[in-house]
């Protein structure tokens, strides 16, 4: 069966290259997110994530303290080291570095080379050496120290601070538990209900079966936005209101048509003789379903479970409508959209991290259940 992919070396290479390009294209945005999740806000807005592994030249500012000038020969001298500024400690933790250029105006932060003596606008001179030490000489004592700008090379820096913030400080733990509380029942209940219905539609004979199948397929395309408003009123009316119970029921209802549709497709394809011989042996439908159909349909059930899990895990709309807005019941998508994207809109690092954290669990689920997927869903419809 070595067709397309195996004609000759040339086409094999072409296939490999095409796939590599596609994979890279698919991966690139995620890599950007991943790298950014280890950078702090200032780094992200100063250089692209693709430059993260490189050392970059950045501009810094430091305000020279004007107190206690040394008087020397009629002029006042301020001395110190720019790297000692506590405000820059995050960039230069050991208070050392190399200044390549400096300036006294923000518009030209690299106006003078390190070591070059420059004139201050207010009178006097300033010099910053490459080791960061500076000397400012003014004819009169200054009441406000001048601001020095300098250019220094900063090594690549990665931080776990974002992960700490997201995982421990912001109530994300609660959101994580809430998401699990929503997704697990919302995955299991519809599958169970759908499996029975699918069996009835596939293997039991009764009047109106065709009509019901048509109805299920028809309901497949009902946009769920349509259901939100009336259902919320209904839930309020019968006293469920906005609650976990409400969202489970809603996810069950919305997930059912696809579950029934896919599971029926699969079950129809199961070998007829097994079921019929079981019937001849006197097994009831319930026994056939539990002992034969369920084990045989396991790949299909598992794959639908994965998809339903992914959908409910990543759902924003249903959660916004059917769950109360309070932090007690916020799920992760709502937390990210309303809380993180909102208050920390400028903090890309935190956002990237939050997105990564929310991806982690689905990925684990996917990788552990992957093999069912491959056999899964549609064995029935491939006829």
């Amino acid at each position: 069966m070595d067709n397309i992919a195996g004609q000759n070396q040339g086409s094999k290479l072409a296939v490999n290259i095409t796939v590599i390009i596609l994979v890279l294209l698919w991966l690139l945005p995620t890599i950007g997110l991943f790298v950014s999740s280890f950078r702090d806000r200032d780094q992200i807005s100063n250089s692209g994530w693709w430059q993260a592994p490189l050392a970059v030249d950045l501009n810094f500012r430091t305000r020279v303290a004007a107190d206690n000038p040394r008087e020397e020969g009629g002029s006042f001298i301020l001395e110190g080291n720019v790297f000692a500024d506590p405000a820059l400690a995050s960039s230069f933790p050991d208070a050392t570095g190399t200044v390549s250029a400096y300036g006294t105006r923000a518009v030209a932060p690299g106006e003078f080379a390190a070591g070059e003596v420059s004139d201050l606008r207010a009178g006097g001179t300033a010099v910053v050496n490459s080791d960061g030490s500076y000397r400012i000489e003014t004819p009169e004592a200054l009441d406000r120290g001048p601001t020095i700008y300098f250019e220094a090379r900063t090594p690549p820096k990665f931080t776990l601070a974002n992960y700490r913030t997201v995982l421990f400080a912001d109530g994300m733990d609660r959101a994580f538990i809430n998401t699990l509380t929503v997704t697990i029942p919302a995955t299991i209940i519809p599958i169970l209900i759908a499996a029975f219905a699918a069996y009835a539609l596939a293997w039991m004979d009764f009047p109106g079966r065709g009509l019901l199948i048509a109805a299920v397929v028809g309901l497949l395309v009902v946009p769920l936005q349509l259901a939100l408003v009336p259902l919320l009123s209904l839930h309020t009316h019968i006293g469920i209101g906005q609650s976990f119970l409400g969202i489970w029921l809603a996810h069950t209802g919305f997930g059912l048509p696809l579950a029934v549709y896919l599971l029926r497709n699969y079950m129809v394809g199961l070998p007829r003789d097994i079921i019929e011989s079981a019937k001849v042996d006197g097994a009831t439908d319930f026994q056939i379903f539990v002992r034969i159909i369920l084990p045989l349909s396991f790949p299909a059930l598992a794959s639908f479970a994965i998809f339903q899990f992914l959908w409910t895990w990543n759902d924003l709309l249903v959660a916004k409508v059917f769950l109360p807005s309070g932090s007690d019941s916020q799920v992760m998508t709502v937390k990210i959209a309303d809380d993180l994207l909102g208050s920390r809109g400028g903090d890309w690092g935190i956002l990237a991290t939050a997105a990564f954290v929310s991806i982690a669990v689905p990925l684990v689920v996917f990788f552990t259940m992957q093999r069912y997927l491959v056999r899964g869903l549609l064995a029935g419809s491939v006829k």
Partner: protein
Amino acid sequence: MSPVFQGMLTIIIGVGGCVGYFYFSNMLLDKVIFPAKGPNTGRNINRANQVRPWLFLFPAMFALGLYLAYPVVGSFWRSLFDRSGANFIGLGNYIDLFSEGTFRTAVINNLLWVLFVPAMATFLGLLVAQLTDRLSWGNIAKSLIFMPMAISFVGASLIWKFVYSANPDIGIINSIRDAMGLAVLDPLQVRFWNNFFLMFILVWIQTGFAMVILSAALRGIPEETIEAAIIDGANPFQVFFKIKVPQIMGTIVVVWTTITILVLKVFDIVYTMTGGNFGTHILPSYMMTYMFRDDGRATAVAFVIMLLVLPVMIWNIRQARNEMR
């Protein structure tokens, strides 16, 4: 009470309740109402078998009816009333909608989404499925391409901000343009094409879904048919398009339909990326601007969404009917 405990309790009650319902209702039917013993054994078994399908179907039908069929009817009714819900205005909401420019843009955009996203995702999925089929590292490639499936739409929007941002220090497109000496431009403000940039995010997510299912289908094709074709001198493209694709047509259609359905529900991408500005509204996001402010309008928009997919729906019902025969 801790939500963890609550959650576990409800899982047990919910799942246990479901299992219990099926188990005990069957038992009730077989042992109490129509016992398979005594003088009427034969008749009872027949009767029980007539009732049983409905036992199996009842929970699903009830949930479907309540959560999908009833809202369809209910919202249609609601869409005929004004914002307060007190005055019947017939098709007034629809007429108002169609006279609004943003709405017309949203309809057109939505049509583009419905046409482009499923087609593109299915096509790319099929391509990847076929190309990785015989590759030694095929499974790794597939896993990587599937990864976006696991990402929420909100997370995905965030990821793509790192691509589309107008700031060359954040957005990779603009950094490349910047490096090439081109002027910085905001991809999300390029009229018309910005829709496709947004659509591509969904394609990026859904290709993995299409790929996984189609690759399973491709593997299910009996080898003899392919070998026969190769012996007859068919080239790889002929094998692919004339032998393989027709055999998995059923699966392609299911994938296509599933993605189409998804497209009609996705408002998140537009909502977080552009807020519907720059002519990128689609109906689901447009509906959000009315939701809980003017229910009459909001439900009317939902109905237009439904009308848009009516062809897909009818076609699917036909398909199911054909299967039955």
